[in-house]
């Protein structure tokens, strides 16, 4: 799962791979447009539905947070 998430990030936002901070969205590493593309790709690849309530800065604060979100949604599915 982690590899696939990293592949998606590499395709849409390479900078996210090297980012080590705690707020990618606020620091402009990842914009809302890219978030939408990443969410859409994650939904397709993992066959999950990411509700708007999960699309918050905290779940996209860095690559680990995105992986954690996917892991949680896969468990819930």
């Amino acid at each position, binding site marked *: 799962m982690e590899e696939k998430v990293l592949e998606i990030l590499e395709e849409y936002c390479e900078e996210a791979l090297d980012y080590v901070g705690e707020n990618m969205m606020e620091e402009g590493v990842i914009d809302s*447009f890219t978030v*939408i593309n990443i969410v859409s790709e994650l939904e397709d690849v993992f066959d999950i539905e990411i509700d708007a309530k999960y699309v918050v800065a905290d779940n996209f604060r860095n690559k680990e947070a995105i992986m954690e979100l996917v892991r949680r949604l896969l468990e819930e599915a």
Partner: protein
Amino acid sequence: MQLISSGFVILWIISFALYYLVPVKRQWIILAVASAVFYVIGMGGVPLGLLFTGAGAYACGIYLQQSLAAQGRALSECAEKEKKKMVKQGFERRRKRVQILYFVCSLGILLFTKYTVAVWPFLQEAGLTTLGMDAFFSRVVMPLGISFYTLTAIGYVVDVGREQCEAQKNFLQLLLFLSYFPAITQGPFNRYAKLQGELERPHVFTYERMFFGVQRFVWGAFKKLVIADRINLFVGNVFDGGETAAPGSIYAVAVVLYMLQLYADFSGYMDMALGVSETFDIMLPENFRRPYFSRSVAEFWRRWHITLGTWFKDYVMFSFVMSGAGRKIGKNAKKRWPKLGKHVTGIVGTMLVWLLTGAWHGRTVSYLLWGLYYGVIMCVSLVLEPQYGQWKEKLHIKEGKLFALFCMARTWVIVFLADVLIRSETLVQAGAVYRALLLDFRLGEGILTVTDYGLSLYGFLLLFGVCLLWLAVSVLEERGKDVRRALASCPMPLRWGCYYGVALILLITGIYGGSYDTAAFLYQSF
């Protein structure tokens, strides 16, 4: 009662003193009373709309919370996965219906009030009403701060529904969240979880906090009175009355100054609001992060009116994209255009957000065009972003200081062109200004007559000086320096020299009315 008025300062001092005298558990009551006094007596507001919106949000929040709890209980009683899914969907559907009903009602009131004031003169002219739009009537149909508290209340209802916060059980505390007096007229937009956390924690008086709050308030007043209102003397003369006779060079100066005016006015208000709040030990979210240092329009809007941008992003854009309709559009687009289709939902969401942002800012076609303009630029630049790297390589462009300056200048030009639209009184005037800028620049005439528009040579020189000071502070902040703390830790003569200097400039050169009152803030009209 503007923030810069004796009435406000008296309200501030009294509520500040009482706030730290009462037990910490009762501090919110002082703020609630101060907010009510500011709204009703200070600003002459009729709180009917606020009470209605607040009551709706309160009831909605309680219902959502109860529904979520009932859903949890029902799910724990289900063993089968399919049944669980059905039960969950049933609860979600009911919650969505209630939320949509609330959004339609509160946005309906907002739209009704915004457009009634605009349409009323036409209704009178057509003989459809004999009621005059007097001061009281206009306050009833256009409640003070309605744009701000409506969006804030919607955000609260969405957050409760998304389980990002718990519903408020005390109606008066919810009302305080919606009408907190430093933020009620122009924001910043508060998020319930954040502000409630601030309001609920105990606040103990410290000299340092009071000092920093007042310091920030004075800096905001400086930007408003010395910079924004001085610029208005020139810009108002050039644009007001719909005249289009000035040379293009005068319009160029006026629009550049208007860009600064809007920024000084709005960020000045924010400094004052955040400063007042800081004295109560309540930290409000920052609304500006030196937007004119932005290298792209997208970055500009991440730094300008930050809380409005995040509100639209979180509650409109993501809600739309993740909705059934948004997903359907995205899937169809991907099927039809495998390469570019992935961008379609983002493009539709961005355009929706920008058209709404335009409509939120003003009632005229100019504002819709302004929103459309930014929406198109955002979409084009975001879609083309992956190509930028390749173009830079092909053109042998290296990312240095010069390139950064070029990117900033490009952002200024884009904002400049947009500001012509919103500063011109009519679309016809905006068209004439664009024409004058392109075909009738008359540089020589502009230089000779620039002081004929309400701002003398002394005024320009003073403006230049204070803008340099503002720029210096901004550059230091941009480099990560905490100017306020650095100044506070300077040796006493230097520190107080700076404070007295700013205070003197403010008192001597600020643009005041008859009794040291001030002109209204620009963003108050949005």
